[in-house]
């Protein structure tokens, strides 16, 4: 009996469910103008998730006709996840991407250029930190950041005082003097390093965007198509860096084990100084057992100019957003890149704002922790990566070849230039 009625009951249930669902979906349409729903993707990071949720709440309150769905994915799998969603024809309308990935996503037609009437390029260049230009391709902007990151010198205040310094070293000469005084070792085993070298951390950026420029060579041509560091100035800059390990012995590769051993070494009081990004502030704040400070990167070399490496996660609009979804996406992006959102972001996430107006804010510049990062904004360069992972490996290998195999810096750099030029050529060849 029950068997015979089963299917009928199932069908009846399914029909009832479908009708109810239809009513629920249709309900807002009946009530008034149907809201536009757009989807936003970023990677999973507690403070960022919290900040975006709050910003969405504010945005939806200001724009009653728009709903934003917020989805996150683990950091390690994020790029693959976004990439895999594209051929499947799914994915977000507004997406948070690392700036170094933009060329890939632009080249494949995944992103659409930011509408120039809503985001005039001239206005972007006037109002945002100069590094944002790394998001410009073919004369168009493809994404904009809420926050950016720069590098700075993190130092152990007590140790520096012990070495006779009031605060951080301002020049590379002072830096070397302090680091030499603070290094403790017996033969080849280090107990404490003056500087925790980390070519696989942030130091490859330090060489590329800071030391090369201070030693008198730009790393790449204006249009980003040519490697330009393969010259005596470049070799001298690379040699200056590798001398820290081979000649001055103020540090050693992988001094402290672990995925961010150089940072841990500072936090444990085993390193006097490190170069790290503003994104490291959070973990150092919560984990450091020492009194630490932050300073702008030292100057030095034959051209003692200030330079820094900047990077950012930017929000772009995907090709999924069409019609009223595109309008909604543009509004949401404007909101995410507003001064108000940036101030909130700094407060909650601790990342520094991308707008110049905030970089000039005297209160922010005086902040003992964020001040030096914010001060670096005007002179920070975001390397135009076409293949971030491949180009990183090239510089890492050049540094390792000098330190581990005793290859002369000029020779290591010539080889690096050749490898990196091929990567650039491969990219540009596909773009005509």
């Amino acid at each position: 009996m029950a068997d015979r009625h089963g299917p009928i009951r199932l069908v009846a249930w399914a029909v009832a469910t479908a009708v109810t669902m239809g009513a629920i979906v249709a309900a807002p349409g009946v009530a008034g103008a149907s809201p536009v729903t757009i989807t936003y993707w970023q990677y999973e990071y507690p403070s960022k998730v919290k900040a975006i949720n709050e910003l969405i709440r504010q945005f939806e309150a200001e724009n009653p006709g728009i709903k934003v769905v917020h989805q996150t994915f683990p950091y390690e799998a994020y790029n693959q996840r976004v990439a895999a969603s594209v051929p499947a024809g799914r994915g977000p309308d507004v997406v948070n991407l690392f700036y170094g990935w933009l060329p890939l996503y632009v080249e494949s037609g995944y992103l659409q250029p930011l509408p120039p009437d809503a985001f005039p390029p001239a206005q972007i260049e006037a109002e945002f930190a100069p590094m944002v230009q790394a998001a410009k391709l073919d004369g168009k902007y493809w994404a904009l950041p809420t926050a950016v990151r720069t590098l700075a010198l993190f130092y152990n205040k007590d140790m520096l005082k012990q070495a006779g310094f009031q605060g951080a070293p301002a020049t590379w000469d002072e830096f070397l003097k302090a680091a030499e005084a603070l290094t403790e070792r017996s033969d080849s085993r280090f107990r404490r390093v003056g500087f925790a070298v980390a070519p696989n951390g942030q130091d490859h950026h330090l060489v590329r965007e800071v030391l090369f420029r201070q030693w008198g060579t730009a790393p790449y041509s204006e249009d980003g198509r040519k490697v330009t560091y393969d010259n005596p100035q470049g070799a001298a800059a690379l040699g200056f860096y590798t001398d820290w390990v081979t000649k001055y012995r103020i540090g050693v590769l992988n001094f402290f084990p672990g995925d961010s051993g150089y940072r841990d070494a500072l936090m444990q009081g085993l390193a006097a100084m490190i170069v790290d990004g503003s994104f490291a502030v959070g973990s150092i704040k919560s984990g450091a057992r020492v009194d630490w400070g932050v300073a702008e990167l030292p100057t030095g070399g034959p051209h003692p100019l200030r330079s820094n490496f900047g990077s950012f996660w930017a929000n772009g609009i995907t090709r999924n957003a069409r019609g009223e979804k595109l309008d909604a996406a543009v509004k949401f992006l404007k909101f995410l890149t507003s001064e108000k959102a940036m101030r909130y972001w700094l407060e909650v996430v601790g990342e520094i704002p991308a707008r110049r107006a905030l970089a000039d804010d005297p209160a922010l510049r005086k902040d003992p922790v964020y001040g030096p990062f914010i001060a670096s904004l005007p002179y920070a360069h975001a390397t135009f990566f076409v293949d971030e992972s491949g180009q990183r490996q090239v510089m890492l290998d050049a540094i390792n070849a000098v330190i581990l195999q005793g290859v002369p810096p000029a020779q290591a750099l010539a080889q690096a230039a050749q490898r990196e030029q091929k990567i650039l050529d491969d990219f540009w060849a596909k773009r005509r």
Partner: protein
Amino acid sequence: MAQLARRAQPLLARKRRGLGPSVPLRWQRALWAYAFLAVPLAFFLSIRIWPAVQAFNLSVHEWNIVGEAQPYVGAANFRELAADPRFARALLNTLQYTVVGVPLQLALGLALAMLLEQVRWLRGLLRAVYFVPYVTPVVAAAWVWQWLYSPNFGAVNGVLDLLGLPPQPFLNSPEQALYAVVAMVVWQNLGFQVVIFLAGLQSIPRVYYEAAGMDGAGPWRLFRHITLPLLNPTIVFSVVIGTLQYLQLFAQVVNLNFLDQGGPLDSTLTVALYIYQVAFQRFRMGQAAAATVVLFAVMMAVALLQLRFLSRRVEY
């Protein structure tokens, strides 16, 4: 009894009616078995075999994973591989891992298994101790080994220091790093290898040893003429499985040097890691698929050769 049979009669009849009277019970059973086997088979085909076939197709196309364009490029991906010194290095390293790791793992595994056979006291505990590394997560183990190997804080250099020997860079040295990785992999696989050999040893009948012992054979001759030949199936299995494992080496290499995977200076790079980097960090899917095809061919050839030349049927 007769009553029971009579009661069962309609049941069987009803069952037979289901598939028609012409299908014998034996076939029906087989059909059911095939029906159940078909489910995992379908899964296996769609999850493992079909993507593998697609990899062959992808290897002659170019694809950056994001774009829709997948132009046919013929053998260009393979030419690119042939011209890439990193791929050559990865192949060479992988070969070196296998040639060093497999024999080491087999020799140590056999030695330990034979020693474990000799002891009674604490045998279970000892066996567990050797097996624990095999069930330890690679990431956790790699962390511990990173610390052990550290030139400045590591226990290994501490011991060397006590012995008055110079400290070694291990993972930091392009010359030593590969062997440092092998040591960890052998340590991890050893427990499994020991278990396999223990099973193999226990399947050798005692009477052979007793008979040979009565004829005056010493331990070496017992090992050489009884243990080794009769362990042949176990050894062949271990060599083939071990070789396939080493040819696909990935997780240990990645986690022992997480920020310079395959480094320093590509000295620990494996083919599997190369494929991962090219595919999922640089998004050259076609080139990665081509490397997969090469790895597949190498693995197939090696396994077939090993089965052909190592298998010996021994009977006494």
